[in-house]
């Protein structure tokens, strides 16, 4: 994907070529799923050049998961953007989760994979800062996670438009950031995406999900968080 990717593995023996494979995987994901790329598989589907039913296994799996997530979240998560498909709000977490699975299959135990501020952790306690949406040089909270995924949804800017999946002409600006800790990054990311689309109600949605905690920041710098958030928080 076209965003910073950080992979850190702290096992005793780490092979550079294994780490390279993870970066190659993210390039593969970007080439397939980026709606900004003219010849990506998703762009070709959107142009009608490929039918969804004839697309690759990975594409069909992601689109199927998007349909499921849309049903589970009453449409607050959706990959439909007008006539086009845009699975970004799910494929990011899905790809990070898959990449972490590849590290596990390679035999690694202690690592994290961070793509664009969404993170999958494994094997030991990792300290994750929640960035201040108003100041990129500060963290407003610090959580400690081991095996969980941490995803932060923010205002989705597309072109000069701030996008609300539910009402395309009424973008979300009441909240500016919603961080979710989930059982893994695939779950955390898709639920953070759905919750952000709900605006201020999003944190209520997260509070009802078993195994998830959330921290939402409003445009006024007021945070609202789930009761169980504090069990992860060290600051």
């Amino acid at each position, binding site marked *: 994907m076209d965003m910073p990717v950080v992979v850190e593995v702290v096992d005793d023996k780490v092979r550079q070529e294994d780490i390279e494979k993870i970066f190659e995987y993210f390039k593969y994901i970007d080439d397939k799923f980026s709606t900004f790329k003219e010849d990506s598989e998703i762009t070709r589907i959107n142009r009608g050049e490929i039918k969804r039913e004839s697309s690759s296994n990975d594409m069909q799996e992601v689109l199927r998961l998007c349909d499921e997530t849309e049903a589970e979240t009453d449409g607050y998560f959706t990959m439909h953007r007008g006539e086009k498909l845009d699975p970004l709000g799910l494929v990011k977490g899905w790809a990070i989760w898959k990449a972490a699975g590849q590290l596990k299959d390679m035999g690694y135990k202690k690592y994290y994979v*961070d793509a664009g501020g969404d993170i999958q952790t494994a094997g030991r306690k990792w300290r994750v800062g929640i*960035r*201040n949406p108003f100041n990129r040089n500060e963290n407003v*909270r610090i959580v400690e996670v081991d095996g969980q995924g941490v995803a*932060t949804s923010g205002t989705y800017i597309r072109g000069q438009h701030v996008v609300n999946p539910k009402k395309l002409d*009424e973008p979300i600006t009441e909240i500016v950031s919603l961080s979710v800790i989930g059982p893994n990054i695939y779950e955390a990311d898709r639920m953070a995406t759905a919750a952000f689309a709900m*605006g201020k109600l999003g944190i209520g949605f997260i509070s009802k999900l078993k195994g998830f905690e959330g921290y939402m920041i409003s445009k006024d*710098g*007021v945070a*609202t968080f789930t009761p169980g958030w504090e069990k992860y928080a060290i600051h």
Partner: protein
Amino acid sequence: MKKLLLSLGVIGTFAIYGLSQQSSPELAMMPVPTTGPSPVPDNSGSAATPAPTSGQSSSQPVPTVPPVTGGQYKNGQYTGSVADAYYGNIQVKAIITNGLISDVQFLQYPNDRRTSIMINTQAMPLLRSEAITAQSANVDIISGATDSSQAFVESLGSALAQAK
């Protein structure tokens, strides 16, 4: 007789609960008293340990938004700072009418076109709340939104700070 009265009492209690929920739709929260550092300090005076970030660093100090506890904004138009969105700059103008944000306009956007966006307001259930504060402890990783989202919020935040 006793049983009937008890069950009527229970039904009555639930009915009252239901009605009061409908008539007071505002945010119901337990504010967490903040101890320790005061609201997020201005970036230029901050002594926070810089943590490794995976995003772009800001090339100019960005004022942080002081928390608003119950007050409204002053009417008027407020221009936010120019913030780096990695592929260009974003700058917004916030328009306050009747103490509320009625419009946010893009003054700068990488391809330099302009647009305006509308605002939604919604209510919410019982949860914990606090003013955000800067934490100076070291971290391994940082979770945040994308560069364009960060820049949009930084610019919007500085506009709103002027409107306070």
